[in-house]
């Protein structure tokens, strides 16, 4: 009572003559009104602009810098891209060439890039909140649609928003994209690209329809438990299966296997091959250039060879010899879609190779596996597991339909709002960290997850994260003029009988033709215009390489004469490009004077010997292919056109465009056409 009375009395004192509190309150009101604009005046960006002015004040180029300085909020506005960037408000010296030595942010000069800062703005590459004028909001905002800044190590991801082809400046991104296809990520995760296409896997998971013919249940069990213990380079990831699950899946796969219908050669030669000279098998393996695609572990423990096909170090443990022989004879019978070419080996060669490969075993891989005969329950459970883990997404399995959209689509994963991510405790709450953690330890994100465990190195994880971060919302809404047309994908298949032959040989596994095929070997789309028929025929019979230092080389397929003739005819007629007129430049009969003039031009005017060699004794050029026999290989018309504009014929080639005059080109062509190689050497080979 006493207290409330006191309050009442003091209120009464206050309100009885309200003029006093009125005067005081008005004064406070005035002060309160003054705070708000003052707060505006002492804003963060003004602080940075003042610091910038102090920084440039004492420099020798102060005059220029001060003239360039614009006070107030600086804005880049790109209405078509929806970009409003005010980064330059604080990053004042971004475009000042003179500030290249300044390392203190935010005032340093932007490193040189192929794009103009004012045309592309900042957030398109760096992300962050462009409209913000405070550091925290600009750099770290996570409210959709804003994103925090992209860490510099993933910066290549930003290039990938517009550039869908491989760029020389973005090795990480390129590697990540290759890995997405190579490691089968895109089997389960759909990745749609802005041009409407879908990213396709480049690995070849084998069909499991006839698995029982190929291998044993024990091997399957051991493989399922840990594919990398069989071969460190194995593509298949580890699904971290329990012993029982692996047992049941192997039981199901064996029980579910059907006969392939491949005409199995009886393994008559098995004993013979064992006794045969093992070096004969090894040299056949070498002559056939199997190592172009397959790797093996050498004595030193290094894995040597290509990675297009599986590593063969333990192949003898894995496959049954009779299956191996039938596979080598015609791989298409077992796996119709395989990239393995159908070599024309003789029965004896098949026996040799089978014996050679069957001897490559790491028998301890299955040594500790002892499986009891499968029960129907185990098989049924295995079937359930196979469906659950989505094995059929990659592998063809009899009776199990390939599931659609098995895993979350990743087409816009690079713009996923943080609010939609579930982080594990203790991790950095950013999208790149989330992606890296998800790639490295997918099962840490909760029970019941099915994504398998890969064994990636940290540069590989970085590369994959970079590739995933390039899949942004923005890449779909880029202004038309920013979109870089990606190379057209085609479904080109060579036609006719020759086409069938080329399919058997899987030419397109290595060579690109008319926009489809691998990039291991040269593009053949213009082959018909560039080479001599005779050379091509010879080459198919005995493919000696142009660059002997390479491990990956064109294999010898043991083609018959008719097959070679057919293939040569087809290539010479089907792979022509317009604009190269074989009659325009005569192949032979150039005057010696012209040849001599060409020699002068070659050695003095353009100094071609810096990269190429014509005379192996004196020239030292190793960058480009040797030209000692170029005259018998290439047509004059092609050489002429090539000299005038190499990039027109093969975009991206490093051969410089020297803007050659017609006369120079003609003389040089004459000189090069004269380089036919000595007939003797040819004969020796």
């Amino acid at each position, binding site marked *: 009572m006493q207290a409330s009375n006191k309050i009442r009395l003091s209120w009464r004192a206050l309100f009885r003559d309200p003029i*006093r509190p009125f005067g005081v309150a008005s004064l406070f009101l005035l002060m309160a009104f003054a705070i708000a604009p003052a707060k505006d005046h002492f804003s963060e960006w003004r602080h940075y602009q003042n610091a910038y002015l102090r920084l440039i004040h004492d420099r020798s180029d102060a005059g220029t810098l001060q003239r360039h300085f614009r006070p107030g909020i600086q804005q880049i506005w790109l209405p078509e891209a929806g970009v409003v960037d005010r980064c330059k408000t604080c990053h004042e010296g971004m475009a000042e060439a003179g500030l290249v030595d300044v390392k203190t942010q935010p005032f340093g000069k932007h490193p040189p890039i192929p794009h103009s800062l004012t045309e592309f703005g900042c957030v398109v590459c760096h992300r962050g909140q462009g409209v913000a004028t405070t550091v925290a909001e600009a750099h770290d905002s996570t409210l959709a649609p804003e994103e925090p800044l992209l860490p510099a190590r993933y910066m290549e991801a930003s290039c990938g928003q517009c550039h869908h082809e491989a760029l020389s400046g973005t090795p990480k991104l390129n590697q990540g994209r290759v890995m997405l296809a190579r490691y089968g990520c895109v089997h389960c995760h759909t990745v749609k690209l802005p041009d409407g296409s879908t990213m396709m896997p480049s690995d070849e998971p084998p069909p499991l329809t006839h698995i029982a013919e190929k291998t044993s249940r024990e091997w399957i069990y051991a493989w399922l438990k840990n594919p990398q213990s069989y071969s460190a380079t194995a593509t298949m990831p580890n699904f971290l299966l329990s012993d029982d699950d692996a047992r049941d899946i192997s039981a199901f796969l064996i029980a579910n296997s059907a006969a392939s219908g491949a005409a199995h050669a009886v393994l008559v030669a098995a004993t013979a091959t064992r006794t045969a000279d093992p070096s004969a098998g090894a040299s056949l393996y070498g002559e056939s250039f199997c190592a172009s695609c397959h790797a093996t572990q050498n004595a030193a423990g290094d894995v040597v060879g290509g990675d297009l096909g599986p590593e063969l170090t333990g192949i003898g443990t894995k496959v049954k010899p009779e299956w191996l022989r039938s596979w080598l004879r015609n791989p298409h019978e077992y796996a119709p879609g395989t990239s393995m070419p159908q070599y024309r080996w003789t029965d004896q060669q098949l026996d040799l190779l089978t014996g050679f490969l069957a001897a490559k075993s790491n028998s301890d891989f299955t040594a500790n596996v002892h499986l009891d005969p499968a029960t129907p329950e185990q098989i049924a459970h295995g079937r359930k597991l196979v469906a659950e883990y989505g094995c059929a997404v990659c592998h063809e399995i009899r009776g199990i339909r390939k599931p659609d959209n098995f895993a979350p689509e990743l087409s816009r994963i690079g713009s996923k709002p943080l609010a939609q991510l579930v982080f594990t405790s203790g991790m950095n709450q950013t999208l790149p960290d989330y992606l890296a953690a998800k790639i490295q330890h997918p099962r840490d994100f909760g029970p019941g997850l099915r994504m398998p465990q890969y064994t990636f190195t940290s540069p590989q994880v970085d590369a994959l994260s970079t590739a995933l971060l390039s899949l942004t919302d923005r890449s779909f809404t880029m202004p038309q003029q920013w979109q870089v047309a990606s190379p057209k994908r085609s479904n080109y298949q060579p036609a006719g009988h020759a086409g069938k032959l080329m399919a058997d040989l899987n030419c397109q596994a290595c060579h690109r033709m008319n926009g489809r095929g691998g990039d291991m070997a040269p593009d053949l789309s213009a082959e018909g215009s560039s080479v001599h028929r005779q050379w091509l025929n010879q080459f198919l019979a005995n493919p000696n390489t142009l660059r002997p230092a390479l491990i990956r080389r064109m294999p010898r397929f043991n083609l018959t004469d008719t097959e070679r003739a057919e293939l040569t005819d087809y290539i010479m007629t089907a792979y022509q490009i317009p604009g190269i007129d074989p009659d325009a430049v005569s192949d032979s009969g150039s005057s010696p004077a012209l040849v001599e003039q060409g020699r002068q031009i070659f050695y003095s005017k353009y100094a071609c010997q810096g990269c190429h060699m014509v005379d192996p004794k004196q020239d030292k050029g190793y960058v480009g292919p040797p030209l000692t026999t170029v005259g018998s290989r290439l047509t004059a018309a092609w050489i002429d056109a090539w000299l005038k504009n190499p990039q027109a014929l093969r975009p991206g080639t490093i051969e410089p465009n020297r803007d050659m005059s017609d006369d120079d080109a003609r003389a040089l062509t004459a000189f090069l056409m004269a380089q036919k190689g000595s007939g003797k050497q040819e004969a020796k080979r």
Partner: protein
Amino acid sequence: MAEDNKSRTAEPEDEISRRAFFTKLGLGSIGLAAAGTMSFAYQYMSPNVLYEPSPVVNAGKVDRYSIDSVTLDPVSAIYLIRVQEGFFALTAICTHLGCMTAWKPELGMIACPCHGSRFNREGQKLAGPAPKPLPWLHTWLSDDGDIMVDRSTVIPAMQFLRI
């Protein structure tokens, strides 16, 4: 209370002057606050950033323009004219009432469709109600060799950009 009563009864003069002081303090503060609010409103109403196209226009490379050609860019409303002496840029906005003029190649002059003003290639008025010639705009070559025009900067006539 007690003090209040005392001051009321004992010193009415003092009380009156005190009231007057507080009245002045209150009203004065409010007056100042109101004036401050006016300046506050002025600050607030002046935009700090503009969503307007930049006055600087990139007109592209030199070879796009042949000698003795008059090129109208309707988006930025400028004429880019190449003559023997070099380049110059004119605004395409008529100085009369702001209509968009057009180059008449057959007449060799710039004509305004609204009220019939006519200008020659250098922007000088030939006929019509336009009060001033078409102003020349500041032009320069960028580091990349592009012709740049600043629509907000007027330069004296006959200052060609020599290439």
